[in-house]
């Protein structure tokens, strides 16, 4: 599959937490109007941060990344990556 085709097939919600894992990734979406969804995303974020995951806030197109330490309900994309291990 070409990259462009792949991009066309991915549809994301307004706010999405993307966790890098053995399946490729797991997405947790939330709507700021729905408190249980926000709480679920926040809980996932905090649990993985507690395990040493690095958290990045991104724009939808993948630009303007920055490291964050606290859950941001207004973020378009959050990416959580497992901790780096030196080889």
């Amino acid at each position: 599959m070409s990259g462009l085709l792949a991009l066309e097939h991915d549809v994301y919600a307004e706010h999405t937490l993307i966790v890098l894992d053995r399946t490729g990734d797991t997405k947790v979406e939330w709507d700021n109007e729905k408190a249980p969804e926000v709480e679920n995303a926040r809980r996932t974020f905090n649990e993985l941060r507690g395990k040493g995951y690095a958290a990045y806030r991104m724009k939808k197109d993948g630009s303007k990344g920055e490291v964050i330490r606290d859950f941001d309900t207004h973020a378009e994309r959050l990416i959580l990556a497992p901790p780096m291990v030196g080889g």
Partner: protein
Amino acid sequence: MATILPTFLTNDTGVDIAGYNVAAATDCTYAATTGVYLTYTTGYTVICNSNAITIQAPGVTFNEPDPEMVREWERQCAQRMTEEVASQERAKRLLLMMLTAAQRADYERHGFFVVVGQSGKRYRVRRGRHGNVYELNARETPIASYCASPLGVPDEDAMLAQKLQLENDEAEFLRVANRTAIAA
């Protein structure tokens, strides 16, 4: 004798089995005639069934495995390989989505892309996960390689994690990574 990649083990990167790190166990073999034995270069043998992995020290003889167990292992192995392919495709889609157009073109064409760290240094991230990050000089020549990646994710997830950390937390990447200078 058919040689296959034991997908259920390669995904369990970082797991230490009998003192042998399975992250490096890509050279183990599956002998179709003798069953579910994965013999490592260390001499240890790993026996796999539906719910357990048993480690056998070198020099111990095994009984012939139960054919039903072999079939079940083969079924599980095929399933894991399917899952691994799917996870690699998901990881590639996400990586491509997070790359700029120029990085995407480089990656599709050459198997690497270049990221600029917070310091302004340029790094080439090649397809892979171990020692696949290269610091470039002004002539785009690699002057050092770095080895640091997250465990338990497909390669292209690892590359995305490397890109994100180099761009947004370069000092932490350099702190963790093992650096090897490349002779001119």
